């Protein structure tokens, strides 16, 4: 399925999904409500069969007060890719875990938790990944401050 047909099929499945502008890959933007069910459809529907979660990360849109979760899906059956973006609140963030759909998500979500401080609902083993357990702050947030950080000369 080419990019256009793929996006159309996805909008058919989830009317709330919008095409994401300014990208070089097929991408949709969906609301956080029903995210898990939507991703499950993407994985199990034979038209999509996105059985491979290539990547999961987050973007800190500090000015808008939002975090964006980004999922890069890939289908080993059809060979197509899809980028799924989900906006969540920056204050008191909470995201549903997809580690029951793709086991690798457990690992990738731990990285996002470690660096962005986004807790995942029902995550089986939510721990700091790279940083110490007693580290304060989440380094990839745009407002992260550390006394060892140097100011870059402008």
């Amino acid at each position: 399925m080419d990019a256009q047909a793929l996006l159309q099929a996805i909008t058919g499945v989830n009317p709330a999904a919008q095409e994401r502008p300014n990208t070089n890959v097929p991408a949709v933007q969906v609301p956080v409500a029903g995210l898990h069910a939507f991703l499950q459809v993407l994985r199990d529907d034979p038209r999509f069969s996105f059985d491979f979660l290539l990547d999961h990360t987050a973007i800190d849109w500090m000015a808008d007060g939002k975090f964006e979760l980004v999922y890069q899906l890939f289908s080993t059956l059809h060979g197509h890719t899809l980028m799924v973006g989900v906006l969540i609140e920056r204050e008191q963030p909470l995201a549903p875990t997809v580690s029951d759909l793709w086991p690798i998500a457990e690992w990738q979500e731990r990285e996002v938790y470690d660096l962005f401080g986004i807790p995942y609902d029902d995550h089986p083993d939510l721990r700091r990944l790279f940083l110490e357990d007693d580290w304060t702050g989440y380094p990839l947030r745009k407002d992260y401050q550390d006394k060892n950080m140097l100011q870059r000369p402008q």
Partner: protein
Amino acid sequence: MTVRVRTLDELLTPPAAGSSALSTQEYFVNMGPQHPIAHGSLRLVLRLDGETVKEVIPVPGFVHRGIEKMCEKLNPRQIIHLTDRLDYLSAVMNNWGVAKAVEKAANIETNGRIETIRTLMSELQRIQSHMLWWGVLGMDLGAYTAFLYAFRDREIISELFEETIGARLTMNYVRPGGVMFDILPDFQEKVKKLLKYLGPIIDEYDTLLSGNVILQERLRNVGVLDGKKAVALGCTGPVLRASGVPLDLRKLTPYGRYGDVEFNVAVGSKGDCWDRYYTRMEEIRQSMRIIEQLIDSIPEGPVNVLRASARISIPEGTYYDQIETARGVLGVMLVSDGKSPSPYRVHFRSPNFNNLWAVTALAPGWRIADIITIQSSLDLVIPDIDR
């Protein structure tokens, strides 16, 4: 809402001894960060029952340098420097991954000469990287001689890089819009000589290690990872292909000159350590085939389509691009707000980070010695995990 944040200490409480006099007590052992097997600083906490591994808890982060955070303050050309420090054994491929993402985002067209040189260098480095892996696997299994054989031959490729690029490890060679330096006039001749030398050498590797009955006993049927599981665990590269999933971006979405050359994707059938071993050995041969086909057809042209001082501006948007490195899929996500010259956010989907996770699924039930085999067959480069 059931968010429960745990700590490592919670996991490391030793279980009580069994009630029977014969039952044994499980114990925890730290394999790494300072351990001969840890080829970087990777800590694996093993829960053991005697010699049998019950659970593996990977604790990465000893070389976490915050590369993604640093990239938010750098322009695309400067980011290239940092990518050398991800998977240092696939430096050129990492460079290319970022360069390709930037070129796609900023609509920069390159020419045939650039793409050919990039492809050649990448394949040379793939050979070099797999050679190093081969030697290290031998060393991990106790055959130290293999390590030095591999380094002897790897040296020739390193010297080739040094002549062309000026660096042997952190090359910083591919940049958005081209490559750093043109190849030397005798490059083609030297590569041909190298190929002629490598053919028998790879066969020698087979006679030294592959055919050894002890090695086969150690690798066969150990750490079996079937295709479905490998996909679910997010493995890519030779690890995934050894499980029978022919996912190779060079074939699937050909970039560079891969569309013009003939080569086979090495695929395993069972997904045990032996398949991972042999997949890589075959990949060396396939890489040699690719180089053979390209070395005589390097088109003429400039090696950089941009001026060195040209400003690369990435238009606003989110861009994702991926490349096949020696260890799997390196994905580069660039987010630009269109205002500043540096990207708003950069994320690397690193192959080793995702491949490492497979250890937790593969290791339980095997012996301590098999952890070494499994970890070695996954071919992990630690700085790429930590970033």
